[in-house]
Each structure stands twice: as C-alpha cells, then as structure tokens.
C-alpha cells in the first residue's frame, strides 16, 4: 500500500500489514513530508517483490509518479489506484483506463473505417 495514514491504518486493521525482521514494511504512509523520490522508491520496491500480488496506491499519489505508474505493464503485481479521503476517484486519471481509451479515440475509429 502506498496511501495516506487513515487508509493504511484501515487496511492494517483488516490484517494485510506485514513487518519483517528487518523492520521492512509492505506499506508506505504518505504525508506532506514524504518526497516524490521516496514514493518512487517504494513503488519500485513493491512492484519487484515476489511476495506482493496487489499494490494499492491512492490515485493522487499515483499522479505524483504518473510516468512510472503508466509505464508499468506487468500483470503481477496488479496496480490498483484507489480513492483517498480528500481526493475522490477520477476515471480520467486511471492508468488502466488511459491505456484502453485508445480503443475509443477518433484515430482508432478512423483507421477502422479505412
């Protein structure tokens, strides 16, 4: 998980939190002091770990590292952009929907007609 404190707290209550012997966690709490580099490093780490199947990332945080999220194309772990307290979900910014929007673009329709 890469999300704000309340979201991470809630999911940890649901039992998905993991802290190993080296005090490495499977979550990153993002606040006003968290740097973009730290978010990028956490994203790269979670997407390369074999014990992680799904990465939950708040959409507004995903927008901070949009290039990295959009260029990720492996099936596992799956990247799910979720809403946060202060930023509701916006389908226009979802990386999965951006990828498939091509099917509905004017260019693809025009090429089909040719």
């Amino acid at each position, binding site marked *: 998980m890469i999300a704000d404190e*309340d979201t991470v707290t809630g999911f940890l209550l649901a039992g*998905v939190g993991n802290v*190993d012997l080296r005090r490495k966690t499977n979550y990153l709490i993002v606040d006003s002091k968290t740097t973009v580099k730290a978010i990028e490093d956490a994203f790269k780490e979670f997407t390369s770990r074999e014990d992680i199947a799904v990465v939950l990332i708040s959409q507004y945080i995903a927008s901070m590292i949009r290039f990295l999220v959009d260029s990720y194309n492996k099936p596992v772990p799956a990247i799910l952009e979720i809403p946060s307290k202060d930023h509701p979900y916006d389908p226009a910014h979802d990386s*999965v929907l951006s990828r498939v929007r091509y099917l509905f673009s004017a260019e693809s329709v025009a*090429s089909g007609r040719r």
Partner: protein
Amino acid sequence: MEEDDRCSSSNPGGIGQEEEDEDGKVLRFLDSLDTYLTLLDSLSSTLRQGWFEVASARHSMGSSRISSVLLDQKVQSAATTFQVRKSIHGSPSESCPSFAISKWASSRDGKCSFGELEVSHVRKTSKNSELRHRGSSNFYDTTEEHDLTINASSSISDSNVHQERSKSLSVFGTLVSPRLRAAQVSFETALDAIVEIANIRSSMLSAFTQLQQQMKEKDLS
C-alpha cells in the same frame, strides 16, 4: 427466395464468423469495463464509511492512540493475504492472472484459508435444514456426531478469526472503541471489492489485448 437471401447473408465465406468473434470480444471488453467502474464506485463508498469510522474512533480514543507511530512497532506477518493464479490464454504473452483472498489465516495453522471457513458455513446451514426434520427418522442420530465435529471445527475457525482480529486491534491498545471494530469490518469489505476489481482489471486488459491484436491483423491483411 427470402430463405436463400438469409443463408447467403449469414455465412459469406466465414467472414461473418470473424465479425461475430470480434463483436463478442468487444462486448466482453465493454462488460468488464462497466463492471470495473461499478466496483470502483462501490469501493469508494465502502472506503468512505471506513474513513468515517476511523475518524470517529480517533475522536473517542484520542489522536495519540490511533496514529501511524504505533504501526511499525513490532514484527508481524500479514494475516490476510492474496493468492495469484496465472492462466495463459492462447499465446504466452497473454497471461491473465486471477486473484483470491485468504482472510485471517492463523500463523500457527499456516494457511487456514477463508475457503475452509466458507465450507464450514455451508455445512452449518445444511445442518440447520436437517434440524427441521429432527426426530422424524433414526438416520439423523448417526449424523449428530458428524454435526458435532463440524460444529467444533467451525467454532475453532471462528475463534481463530476472532483471535486474529483482536491481534490486529491490539496495536491500538487493549480497550478499543466499537467504531474501530466497525472500521475493521468496513476495510475487510473493501478488501473483498479489491479482489474483484483486480480480477476484472485482469479480464479487461486481456480482452483489450485480444482486440488490439485482432485490429493489427486486420490492418496487415
């Protein structure tokens, strides 16, 4: 003559079949897209409920008792995990993984899966239906022992789940607000939605890839 026209239009050299396949793929893609958006909307509502409950718990217990500082204190392994099953449709490049959730697996028992909890629940309900006929036949006497065993195993599973839930809540102290317990349930529900979203996302991307390939083949031909 009309019948002949119908025949000729329905199968003009197999091209009609290809169009039907393409239409089927487009429909599959659009269905999964619609389901994806609906599930995300449902997830938003569930999360909103959960955030409200966390905020209420923080209000009643105090900000210092529900803060991120408490979260990294001790080594713990995740009690709720996801399982991935990778399936390959057609070419090796089109992998379509499916996700499942295993809730509140006891660390002592290894993987005591939620599936097992579901089976025990199904057996419980079938036992309840037999109760309606209790006393009408001797057959049910022999099943009583079996029912007791099922009851015992389901109560052990329930107590394991209860224990794991309490362990999760104990990070925030021994006595916690009922709102925090309610938040725990809300976020568990959110996890169920997340598993469905992950599966529908996988299906949507697989349908999209197939459509893309078909469009490329059409362009080449």
